[in-house]
């Protein structure tokens, strides 16, 4: 045997027999206590008071129905949620029973062994049948359900009505018109971005790819293959990256921008258009452009079409380590019920995940109309694979867009590299 091989065997023997890195025991608890304290982690929103109010009324009813049961809610900051939730998985003893989580994390958390499979309870839940399909997809991994959809978030095109009128520009009906309008405004108002875009704004860029018939990946759980380098996807990438440049959004400043930066630019009056979510509404209303803007669905390639949007949003899930399964599932259903979602919309503007509830609230609030229309036209979701968390956090797509807009690589080369990185992640994580 050669030295390295011998060394490896030696190490293998000592290491495997003596000590392996620590692993916490996250097996499902077999206890199902009917009394005690339930702990819930929800996300801390920018203005959290209205959310707390809705949650508190749900808890009051829950505690009334279950005597000897207490619920403590902790609102965790969104920025550090990844660390908090990982820590909860690592230390089941101090973990909460229920968590709110971003819907792109579902598959990753399931692989981490953190979320409880509640397929049966979800199937038996009378309200579940009205859950819209994309929302249901976002709690489903390999056919099993790991939580209840809490709200959906979807993006559309914000534009400045005053500027469009002043320069006599029509509201764009196709993506070609959108790009032309952006450049026209930039030429007329050199201090503004036509359409604020960001090299790190994956979910603002993907509608361009989807509208051109491209996909992030094809296949099913366990056998995904990246499709980001397909000819159709490349066309969409080309369309999006053509918006970076001195004639719309200079690469120097825009290559590094993320979604929030583009919305901030629009809200502060530095951009004539931006791709923002229904959840950005409050930020834009609080900005300089209040009363001077409108929202339409992001146009598709063909006239009258709507570019498929990314169906973002959050879910509520039960942790595998809970010792109060029945109670926790009951509380989850109450927190994500039709009634709660309707009041959460009134309080926070979060779009309900039930199609019928969404129709009702849309009738009340005109501002959500373009977003509901976008949802109705069909949305897309990220691959339901644990690899997605890694692809997302290792910035594969932002890197691709940034390489293209900074001129380091061609669309073809950059998308091939991104596809390779995605496939590596799919291969190791499934």
């Amino acid at each position, binding site marked *: 045997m050669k030295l390295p091989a011998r060394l490896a065997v030696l*190490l293998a023997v000592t290491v495997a027999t003596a000590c392996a890195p620590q*692993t*916490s025991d996250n097996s499902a608890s077999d206890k199902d206590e009917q009394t005690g304290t339930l702990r819930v982690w929800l996300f801390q929103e920018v203005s959290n008071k209205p959310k707390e109010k809705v949650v508190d009324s749900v808890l009051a009813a829950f505690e009334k129905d279950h005597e000897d049961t207490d619920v403590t809610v902790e609102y965790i900051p969104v920025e550090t949620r990844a660390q908090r939730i990982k820590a909860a998985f*690592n230390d089941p003893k101090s973990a909460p029973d229920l968590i709110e989580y971003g819907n792109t994390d579902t598959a990753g958390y399931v692989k981490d062994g953190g979320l409880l499979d509640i397929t049966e309870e979800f199937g038996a839940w009378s309200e579940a049948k009205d859950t819209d399909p994309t929302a249901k997809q976002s709690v489903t991994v390999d056919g099993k359900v790991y939580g209840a959809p809490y709200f959906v978030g979807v993006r559309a095109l914000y534009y400045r009505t005053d500027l469009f009128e002043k320069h006599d520009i029509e509201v764009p009906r196709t993506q070609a018109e959108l790009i032309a309008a952006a450049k026209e405004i930039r030429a007329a108002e050199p201090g503004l971005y036509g359409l604020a875009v960001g090299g790190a704004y994956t979910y603002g860029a993907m509608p361009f790819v989807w509208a051109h018939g491209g996909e992030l990946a094809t296949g099913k759980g366990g056998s995904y293959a990246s499709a980001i380098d397909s000819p159709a996807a490349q066309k969409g990438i080309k369309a999006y990256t053509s918006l970076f440049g001195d004639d719309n959004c200079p*690469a*120097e400043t825009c290559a590094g921008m993320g979604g929030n930066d583009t919305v901030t630019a629009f809200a502060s009056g530095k951009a004539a258009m931006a791709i923002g979510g229904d959840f950005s509404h409050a930020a834009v209303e609080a900005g300089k452009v209040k009363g001077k803007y409108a929202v339409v669905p992001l146009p598709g390639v063909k006239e009258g079409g709507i570019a498929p949007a990314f169906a973002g949003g959050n879910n509520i899930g039960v942790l595998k380590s809970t010792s109060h399964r029945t109670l926790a599932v009951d509380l989850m259903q109450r927190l994500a019920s039709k009634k709660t979602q309707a009041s959460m919309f009134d309080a926070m503007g979060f779009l309900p995940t039930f199609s019928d509830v969404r129709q009702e609230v849309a009738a009340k609030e005109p501002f959500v109309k373009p977003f509901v229309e976008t949802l109705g036209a069909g949305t897309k979701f990220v691959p339901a694979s644990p690899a997605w968390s890694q692809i997302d956090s290792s910035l594969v797509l932002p890197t691709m867009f940034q390489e293209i807009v900074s001129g380091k690589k061609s669309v073809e080369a950059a998308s091939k590299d991104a596809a390779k990185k995605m496939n590596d992640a799919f291969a190791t994580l499934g």
Partner: protein
Amino acid sequence: MTSVTHGKSWTPWLYLAPALVVLGGLLAYPIYQLGLISLFHYTQAQVSGGEPTTFEGFGNYAELFGDSQFWEVLLATVLFAAACVLSTLAVGCALAVLLTRVRAVPRLALMLAALGAWATPAVTGSTVWLFLFDPDFGPVNRVLGLGDHSWTYGRLSAFFLVLLEVVWCSFPFVMVTVYAGIRAVPAEVLEAASLDGASQWRIWRSVLAPILRPILVVVTIQSVIWDFKVFTQIYVMTNGGGIAGQNLVLNVYAYQKAFASSQYSLGSAIGVVMLLILLVVTLAYLRLLRRQGEEL
């Protein structure tokens, strides 16, 4: 060997024991864990028990060495650290000499300015430098009339900006240490040199530098270690590694792998590689000095 000397040889160890226990606990054990984790497939799923931990041997290292980005980052790290070390030493030594040549008030001012830079936390310093060079609000662009030129967009210009901050926050250590060394140099030696008509540069090269050699060795090794491990400045100023990861250095790269994407074992492997590189660099440097007949 008699049993008496054998018994005696234990005594030094007894005295060393407290220090060794502390070192063992605080240094050896974490390094052992680092090495251990780097041999497994260890991601979030393994930590939280979703999947069993599997032994990979040198699989993580193979993956690392097979990744072209790693070599690119390694090269960038070495060049960037070298540039930082040279600039820091040059600025620090020049200002130390300057300190001995100016009067009390400017000396005090320079000292205070340097100590201020030294005392500033790295995150604060980086944020302030970034603001100074901000394309929209930064005073630098306004003074130079550069409009909304972005300093962090180009690869070299972003590295240059970070280099400025690194030099700014690490030259005080060099300056103060070297200044203390110069103060300890006998005045008559310097006087003799100037009587012989030696220039300032000549005095530095032929008198001060040789006398200060042990001090210079220490600050050089310190700077090499610091600058090779630079993290905060790159992370804050280039927003986690720059446009398309162009400004990644090893430490930030390890962080992105280990914590951002939860590949703890791969991150550990990078840590081990960094440790080995630094050990080799330091040992080689000391060896070189010893060969030239100098004891540290």
